């Protein structure tokens, strides 16, 4: 028989006042067989109480002890230690909560007594099943990570580092210092905040034991106390901390200015800058939000924001060079591009997208007009020869980039002209031969050899090229055959393929069309064909397509222009057959197309054969699609994907034959010009790595794009400016001529369009700074990376955010420039701030006379803000009005307050001084409304002491915004599994006794992340957290709780149910034994596996099923 001792605590009257402890003790002593001794006592947690337990264990030889008192969260360790001290294993002890769960919440004493008895009975039933457990120890990795570089984090980091341990200081922003760096002075001493902070930050900066990770965020933490692995996402600074000298040359050339978050929007900054001269790290960095949507949308990845910004700044050469990095044919592209960039442009969400394409066209044309060459320099010539097959946009751009790299490039082209579809598929009125030839000449001028009239497969083959010493081949053969319709009469005279028609016109200039032409097809080629037919003198041109007007794949502007030129469009019709007259086509019979795509979205038209339309005509041009030459494909001996496309690796464009790459339409199917160019560049890079490194190196890491939706901040900096319209030829004129329809932008128009860019990526990566930087410290190709840090302890000091005052709409924050937050006021006072330390109104820069401070904005307000008191605002306001008075002794501060809270050393005296010596008028009451009247602000509130409404005229209103949890607190709490309160402040282990510890051993919380705090408190907590960390490190090892899952191998069937369930990957499958296997060190004891194990082979120690079942039985007995 087990011997159980039961102890029931009165907790003064906390328990004893409701629960009849004595009666329970007597009854249980008699009723339960295992109970050897059952005592009740006033305060069991007191030393005499604990002694009772110790003595009984020794004298009565107790096996198990049950203690009924307060929550185990409070005193479980106390009693466990008492048991230990008497030589009993602490896991043979069980605690019952009869205070929080019983006496405090139950009104009826009898019911409370009964409930308490049941709870205790359950614990007795449970405790006899408990077995002695012993934890294991693990050594501690004496490296700390401090998350958050504010004053609390700085303090913790310095103290740990000074004790000789390595510290990683992880900071989200580009500098450390946190909110304190933004303050001007501190209360109640009016010390200069910067003067007391910067010595600390620079100490951190040069401390050999501290490694600062700026622009870094915690992603995930695994492991356990003493042995954590943290994954930290480090965003690029783009400026090397080692190389940067802080000279500031970069800042001077930066074309972008953006509202400064550090200055709370009261001034602007360049993306490359540093917030203030003493900032640590004391180097510049670049603020880049990510890849802008225009660039992300561009298949060729042209840096649109960069060249737009440069154009806006009038730096056309630099802008064009930037275009050429990825798009050699600026003029061509500017004329015929599909413009996915403009669809993505965020300005489109405000008014209309920037005219990106036309601006690019201007740049290309400008170069030619001015007779300058802004191509990048060609690298030293190399010996290797590369063959490019096909002189379309893909082939030519591959040749361009390969030639720049120094290769000996030969382009083989079957047609007699260069340019592929650009030359023979796009009519002159869209792209004139002169423009095209000029850009092609730019390629050939780089030393590219051209062999026209040379067909691949006929005149050259892979083998012959190999023999001729070509190291690599790029196939860009395109699609040059019109697809057929497969309807009756298709082979009649007068029915021609659209592509053949355009090609013949382009090459021979000798095509005739009838007077009445029907064009079949709804794509751009069809429209081009139709418009060409108009220009060739057709009287009537009708375009027939399956799609409805909205569904037509041709570009809207092309269709509009065609209609302007007299083309008639018949939508939703499909050809049924061609009618004949003397062997020549005489009419097209059409049937109604009811839908083009089937339910799965595949092209699968359905018709209503009953509805028929007959169009008389004498020519039909069929432009319903392109295909490649089957013959050519068959000869290649390459792997061919379905649909007659060459199959390639999408990243490298490598085909199944080594050294052979393919791209453009032949790979993609009918695609756009810009896609072909993208492929050309991609192929050039792949060929270069193939030849240079003998392998295919991974393509450059892509930058993450910014969100496609326009943000509030972006909207604020985007006043509507209307888009410039492209000057065009009149329809009547252009109808009869092949002269270009679009006339091009003027310099001024292009520059203005450049200025319309809203800088979605913040930094535009134009490269101006790179060119300006003497020490070559800037690398724009830096990408974010994830670092894995092995640490033994973590201090979370992520600080606070400021309440968003615009949530009080009636205060007009954001609408009235002279309503500012108190943090903005700090910046106004600060010598390195936007006004160089002069307190001036943001609206007109005048010195304010009446300044009204509004307290508790967002604090102590259940309706709109937070319920809690932000604790520091009363003192901040007292401080700020004092500073204001020092700046402007004649000024009059008013304060609308709820209560004045000045608990703290010297605080009350300071506040008193502000009231009595500075003459501030304190009005008790909430502000109802702030409005503008005749150029002055009027603050209307209530004087609750008088009980009357009051209105104060103000030049400046300062809102004492409350402190809130960081907006992204969840990312930290999830990474660490750290509990927060309902607001988002991190939960400490105990509100009184464990203020910096958390529920997770080895993770500590310091500063305002735990709740609103002033500087001294944050510093104290930082120190306290450091103390905890140092205690851990100096002990050097940690006890691992024995309450982990244990596997009974005898029972395990190896069904693998548990393996995938474990969130800590602590369970693996042992193939040799055919059972699961649990890693103690990783197991956290959550018990998910035990609950799921279908054969109950896993049990969590101290929470075994027999213990729980006994407890259930006892609780219901």
């Amino acid at each position, binding site marked *: 028989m087990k011997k159980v001792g039961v102890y029931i605590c009165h907790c003064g009257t906390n328990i004893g006042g409701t629960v009849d402890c004595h009666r329970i003790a007597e009854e249980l002593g008699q009723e339960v067989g295992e109970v050897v001794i059952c005592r009740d006592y006033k305060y069991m947690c007191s030393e005499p109480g604990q002694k009772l337990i110790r003595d009984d264990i020794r004298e009565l030889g107790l096996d198990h002890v049950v203690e009924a008192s307060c929550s185990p969260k409070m005193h479980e360790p106390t009693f466990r230690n008492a048991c230990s001290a008497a030589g009993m294993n602490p896991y043979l002890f069980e605690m019952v909560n009869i205070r929080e769960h019983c006496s405090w919440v139950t009104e009826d004493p009898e019911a409370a007594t009964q409930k308490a008895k049941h709870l205790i009975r359950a614990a007795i039933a449970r405790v006899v099943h408990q077995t002695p457990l012993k934890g294991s120890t693990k050594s501690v990795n004496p490296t700390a990570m401090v998350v958050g570089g504010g004053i609390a984090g700085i303090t913790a980091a310095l103290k740990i580092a000074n004790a000789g341990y390595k510290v990683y200081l992880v900071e989200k922003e580009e500098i450390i210092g946190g909110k304190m760096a933004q303050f001007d002075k501190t209360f109640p001493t009016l010390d200069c905040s910067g003067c007391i902070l910067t010595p600390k930050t620079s100490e951190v900066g040069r401390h050999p034991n501290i490694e600062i990770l700026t622009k870094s965020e915690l992603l995930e933490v695994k492991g356990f106390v003493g042995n954590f692995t943290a994954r930290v996402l480090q965003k690029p600074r783009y400026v090397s901390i080692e190389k940067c000298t802080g000279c500031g040359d970069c800042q001077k050339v930066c074309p972008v200015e953006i509202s400064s978050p550090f200055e709370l929007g009261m001034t602007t900054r360049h993306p490359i800058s540093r917030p203030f001269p003493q900032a640590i790290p004391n180097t510049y960095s670049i603020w880049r939000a990510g890849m802008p949507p225009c660039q992300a949308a561009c298949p060729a990845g042209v840096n649109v924001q960069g060249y737009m910004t440069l154009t806006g700044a009038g730096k056309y050469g630099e802008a064009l060079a930037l275009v050429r990095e990825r798009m050699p044919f600026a003029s061509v592209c500017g004329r015929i591009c599909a413009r996915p960039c403009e669809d993505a442009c965020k300005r489109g969400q405000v008014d209309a997208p920037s005219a990106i394409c036309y601006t690019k066209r201007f740049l290309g044309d400008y170069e030619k007009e001015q007779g300058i060459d802004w191509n990048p320099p060609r690298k030293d010539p190399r010996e290797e020869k590369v063959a490019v097959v096909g002189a379309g946009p893909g082939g030519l751009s591959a040749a361009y980039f390969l030639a720049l790299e120094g290769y000996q490039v030969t382009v083989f082209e079957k047609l007699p002209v260069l340019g592929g579809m650009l030359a023979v598929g796009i009519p002159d009125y869209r792209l004139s031969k002169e423009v095209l030839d000029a850009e092609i000449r730019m390629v050939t001028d780089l030393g590219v050899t051209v062999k026209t009239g040379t067909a691949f497969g006929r005149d050259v083959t892979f083998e012959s090229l190999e023999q001729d010493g070509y190291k690599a081949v790029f196939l860009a053969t395109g699609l040059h055959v019109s697809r057929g319709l497969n309807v009756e009469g298709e082979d009649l005279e007068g029915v021609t393929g659209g592509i053949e028609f355009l090609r013949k016109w382009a090459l021979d200039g000798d095509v005739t069309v009838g007077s009445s032409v029907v064009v079949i097809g709804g794509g751009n080629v069809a429209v081009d064909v139709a418009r060409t037919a108009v220009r060739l003198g057709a009287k009537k041109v009708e375009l027939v397509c399956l799609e409805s007007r909205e569904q037509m794949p041709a570009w809207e502007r092309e269709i509009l222009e065609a209609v302007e030129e007299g083309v008639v469009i018949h939508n939703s019709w499909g050809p049924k057959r061609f009618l004949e007259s003397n062997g020549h086509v005489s009419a097209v019979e059409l049937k109604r197309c009811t839908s083009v795509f089937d339910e799965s979205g595949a092209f699968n038209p359905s018709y209503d054969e009953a509805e028929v339309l007959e169009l008389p005509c004498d020519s039909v041009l069929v432009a319903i699609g392109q295909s490649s030459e089957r013959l050519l494909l068959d000869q290649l001996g390459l792997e061919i994907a379905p649909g007659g496309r060459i199959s390639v690796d999408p990243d490298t464009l490598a085909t199944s034959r080594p050294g052979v790459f393919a791209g453009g339409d032949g790979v993609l199917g009918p695609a756009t010009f810009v896609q072909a160019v993208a492929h050309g560049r991609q192929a050039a890079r792949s060929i270069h790595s193939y030849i240079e490194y003998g392998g295919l190196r991974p393509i450059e890491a892509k930058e993450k794009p910014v969100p496609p939706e326009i943000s509030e901040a972006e909207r604020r900096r985007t006043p509507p400016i209307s888009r410039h319209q492209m000057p065009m030829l009149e329809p009547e004129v252009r109808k009869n001529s092949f002269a270009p329809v679009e006339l091009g932008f003027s310099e001024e128009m292009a520059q203005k369009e450049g200025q319309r860019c809203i800088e979605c990526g913040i930094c535009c990566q134009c490269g101006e700074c790179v060119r300006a930087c003497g020490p070559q410290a800037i690398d724009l190709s830096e990408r974010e990376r994830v670092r894995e840090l092995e640490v033994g302890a973590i201090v979370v000091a992520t600080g606070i955010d400021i309440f968003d005052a615009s949530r009080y709409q009636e205060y007009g924050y954001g609408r009235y420039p002279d309503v500012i937050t108190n943090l903005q006021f700090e910046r106004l006072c600060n010598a390195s701030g936007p006004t160089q330390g002069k307190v001036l109104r943001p609206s007109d820069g005048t010195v304010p006379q009446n300044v009204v401070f509004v307290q508790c904005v967002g604090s102590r307000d259940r309706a709109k803000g937070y319920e809690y008191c932000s604790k520091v605002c009363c003192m901040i306001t007292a401080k700020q009005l004092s500073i204001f008075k020092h700046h402007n002794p004649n000024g009059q501060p008013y304060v609308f307050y709820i209560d004045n809270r000045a608990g703290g050393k010297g605080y009350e005296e300071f506040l008193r001084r502000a009231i009595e010596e500075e003459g501030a008028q304190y009005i008790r009451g909430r502000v109802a409304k702030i409005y503008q009247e005749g150029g002055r602000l009027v603050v209307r509130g209530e004087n609750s002491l008088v009980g009357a409404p009051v209105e104060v005229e103000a030049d400046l209103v300062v809102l004492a915004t409350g402190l809130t949890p960081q907006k992204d607190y969840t990312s930290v709490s999830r990474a660490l599994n750290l509990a927060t309160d309902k607001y988002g402040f991190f939960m400490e282990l105990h509100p009184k006794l464990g203020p910096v510890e958390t529920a997770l051993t080895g993770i500590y919380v310091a500063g305002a992340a735990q709740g609103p705090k002033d500087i001294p408190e944050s510093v104290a907590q930082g120190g306290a957290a450091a103390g905890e960390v140092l205690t851990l490190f100096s002990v050097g090892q940690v006890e691992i709780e024995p309450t982990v899952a244990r596997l009974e191998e005898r029972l395990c*069937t190896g*069904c*693998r149910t548990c*393996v995938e369930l474990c969130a800590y990957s602590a369970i693996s499958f042992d193939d040799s034994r055919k059972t699961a296997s649990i890693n103690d060190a990783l197991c956290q004891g959550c018990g998910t596996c035990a609950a799921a194990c279908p*054969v109950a082979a896993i049990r969590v120690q101290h929470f075994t099923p027999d213990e729980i*079942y006994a407890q259930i039985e006892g609780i219901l007995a």
Partner: protein
Amino acid sequence: MPKRRVAIYSATGCSACDNSILGLHYQVGAFTGWAEIVFWPYLRGDSWQVLEDDRQIDVCFFCGSIATEEDRHAALRLRAAARVLVACGACAAFGGLPGLVNLIPADPTEMSTSSQDTWPPLPRAKSRVSGLPGIVPVDYFVPGCPPTQPLLWACFQALVSGGESQIRASFSAARLPEAISTAVAAGVLPPHGSTFAGEKAVCASCCRAKEEKKFSRLYRGHELDPDAGRCLLEQGLICQGLATREGCGGLCTAVGVPCRGCFGKAEAVYDAGAKMVSAISSTFDAAEAGQASEMAARFVDLAGTFYRYTLAEQCALLAGASEERNDAIHGS
């Protein structure tokens, strides 16, 4: 050593257990050297008078569930007469398939109205079917529907032949736990209350390959032709092999149909239904409550599936008749 006196009795059940024992006899042909069968109504037509000479029965194999008053009296009588009482087969051990009737409460008007008053009398049916342990304490269990011959042989070897039999059948398929196989070999009584079967679950001896338990969709038995050689549960079929005691060697899963648990719950399991629920639903491929709820909605008749053979004795909520059992304990 005098021959052990053996009784074999069938209560409410089919004759499969009897036939299995019969088959054992002729297949192995050994144990009658140590046993004298004194009572076997099925094969010998023995009447209860045989037991009236007050000589103890050494081992009684009790087959069938307890569905009538007569069954109950037989159980009490044999318990009193036998030194060792073995619940043989799923019916005796857990109530078996007949126990399923407990899911639908008996309607007295629909049950046979027979009573002792009319003639000829018919044993009164109990309102709830139970297994043998619901009526009397049981010493050993031989599960299965019907028990497989290796298990029966192991049981006879241990309890009847006293380990003297020279014939050692192969028990490898039965995967007896060490305690029992040692006892079988030595001819001593295994630990009281032992089950002559494995201690792991059917999965351990199932021939199908297990990869990853992630339950993304339930298939009813008829809806899926499962891949050969892959775990049935992982393919979306409910297979109770997960929480069922092994010993059969995975007979059902070997022929492509999922286990239904005729060996009862695995050794350490409290309630097989709860364990099946937990094991399957824990691995639901669902992060949101809506998804999980949708997946659960496809399941039907959990009680009739998870307690197919064990409803009467092993379902924590419906196992009953404990009062009767107490009577028996205190009455004897």
